[in-house]
């Protein structure tokens, strides 16, 4: 089934991403439409936004976005309109609400954790046993020298 979808997606030959006839006359409105399109997923495609997609459905969505904008919706209302119809699956940038908080916080939390551990480690190493042999031991130096000679 998935293969079929991919094939259908690629075979949607007559349409190539944004078409000249889709473009709105008002450049400001068009720019907003393009921006919104870049954040919406083409539902039948692989990981592709509707702005780049060649699929028929992506075209329908692009036209829908423009329709809403022409009707006077602001960006958020236009996106909400699409999400209400197609679910949050269409959003390429997931909302930060609920369990998704975990996704958004994953990087910063990991950075804090890693940074904290590293700081403890670095502090320990910097005050570590003064006078402990730094670098290679004599035995290892001899071995290294042997390797270098070869």
């Amino acid at each position: 089934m998935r293969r079929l979808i991919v094939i259908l997606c690629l075979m949607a030959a007559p349409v190539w991403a944004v078409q000249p006839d889709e473009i709105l006359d008002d450049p400001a409105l068009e720019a907003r439409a393009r921006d919104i399109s870049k954040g919406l997923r083409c539902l039948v495609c692989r990981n592709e936004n509707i702005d780049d997609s060649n699929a028929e459905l992506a075209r329908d969505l692009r036209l829908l976005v423009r329709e809403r904008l022409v009707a006077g919706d602001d960006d958020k209302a236009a996106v909400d309109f699409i999400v209400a119809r197609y679910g949050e699956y269409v959003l390429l940038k997931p909302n930060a609400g609920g369990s998704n908080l975990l996704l958004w916080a994953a990087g910063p939390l990991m950075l804090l954790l890693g940074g904290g551990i590293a700081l403890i480690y670095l502090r320990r190493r910097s005050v570590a046993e003064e006078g402990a042999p730094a670098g290679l031991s004599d035995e290892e130096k001899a071995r290294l020298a042997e390797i270098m000679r070869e």
Partner: protein
Amino acid sequence: MITEFGHFALILAFFIACFQVIVPLIGAHKRWPGWMAVAGPAAIIQFALTAGAFAALMWAFVTSDFSLRVVLLNSHSAKPMLYKITGVWGNHEGSMLLWVLIVTMFGAFAALGGAGLPPGFKARVLSVQAMIGAAFFGFILFTSNPFMRVPLPVPFDGHGLNPLLQDPGLAFHPPFLYLGYVGLSMSFSFAVAALIEGRVDAAWGRWVRPYTLAAWIFLTIGIALGSWWAYYELGWGGFWFWDPVENASFMPWLIAAALLHSSIVVEKRDVLKSWTILLAIIAFGFSMVGAFITRSGVLTSVHAFASDPARGVFLLGILAIFMMGALTLFAARAGAMQARGVFGLISRESALVVNNILLAVAAFVVFTGTIWPLVAELFFERKLSVGEPFFNLAFTPFMLALGLVLPVGAMLPWKRAKLGRVLRALRGPFALAVAVGALAYAMQNGRSALGPVGLFLAAWLVSGSAVDLWSRTGRGALRVRAQRLRRLPRADWGKSTAHAGLGITIAGIAGMMAWNVEDIRVVQPGESFDLAGFTLTLDGVRKFDGPNYRVTQAEVTLAKGTHVIRTLYPEKRFYPVAGMPTTEAAIDNGVMRDIYVVIGDPQADGGWAMRSYYKPLANWIWGGAILMALGGALSLSDRRYRVAAGARKAPMDGVPAE
């Protein structure tokens, strides 16, 4: 007949791999020299047999033997010879055979080149490498055997190769990626062998580094090829989509970059040992995650042409066994690895720790984003997507931080450093970078920070690397220092080249994302239009036949003012065998910009839909990647590694950068 020989060789290689797992491991444990020594010849025979099997499969593709299932499904007699050959790995079964061929190839190199390794250690390394080999031989033989025949009668012709794959950029993209993925298996084997021995020392760092470096170079080239292909083939000039499969190659790249930096610390300072071992394990883990994601199709993606859930389960099993085994061993043994070196809070060591944290966390962010749709569906019952906007936002800050600290960290001396001295040396690069960023800000339309910040970082990295290299020449007259510059170790040159390459790539990405100009319109033949100061004229459109496709080709004249720069020929191709169209963009490549033209569909009024782009600094992205790979190759060719034990005959000596 040749097919049967290939099949037989593959089965034999599987048994030899199993033998090579068990005998040397026991030999190393009991200190029986004969049992240990058997690992080397076994590894070489294993490689020879796998190469034979691979050659047999290639023969089947070249001669279009459609009695083989893979050939029937993925080849066609009318396909050009180049793509018959590259078609061998353009499908699941063949690509897994290529994978295992590279596993055994690295094993054979370690067997031949590892003369300086202690026999017990070498036996363990080869045994672990054979475990990986055996697992994948089993995977191929039990779930994806390329040597399966089709029932009689044999069909008259094959189904053809996906037209998107019939392209030089993509034909050589998988082998490079696989060399990278699988190169990390060597680092993994070294790490596990060290854990079994319970000993990691400076020499270990030196043995493992060339393999990591080679793997990283191949990954860099493989990723760059893939991104370049996407740029010119997919028809809108995108170069990176944060697609799950792209991420699958990017995560090992990030971890390998961290690993090759931390192995320097192990080698020079005998600290960070358990962390480096852990990185080596994780790096190969991500490689296998990559294989799993690509081959199972668990995350819907472009590359889903090879998807099959049953195989995914097998791969997941391999991944789980290797990762759990290695991590258990790590948990049991890591404590035994005492660090001895002492260093100050401000030192090269600390800087490399920061580098490692940033790279590892960046890889973690990519990983989280990639598997989040799966996690959300399984645990929270939410069906959602994570795409480009998320990654751009969540990933970029780490690269920004990395770019900012890199020139400083690269110049800090080992052990104990004075930050003030390094910062003073870098005043020039910083001033230059600020000037470049400010200039970019002043010249652009709009208020976007992306472009200026990107160019600031690029100038900072490139000039910082130059100052770093220059500072290595010590004090003295200009002429003397220039002479010393030429005699600096290649590793120094490699370091500066690779760091500068990162800067160039950042510049390219920033330029392309911030100042891309797009134009979509209907053009009548003979009509002209403007694009970012250039004039494009559609002279005409014609149709003709290619070798195995039909072409619709436009002739477009690119001019600046009255000066004609060149004529471009964007094409649409239709592959009748696959029933699939592709676009062939016409690109006028330049140092500072690309002009990118795509022809669309005929319109009712006789005109043609056309998309054209002005893409500033586009080629810097891949130019930077080439520089990074070149820097890696320079480091690899450093005398220290050429003479070093275990790397003497390593395959990657002197590998060119592309």
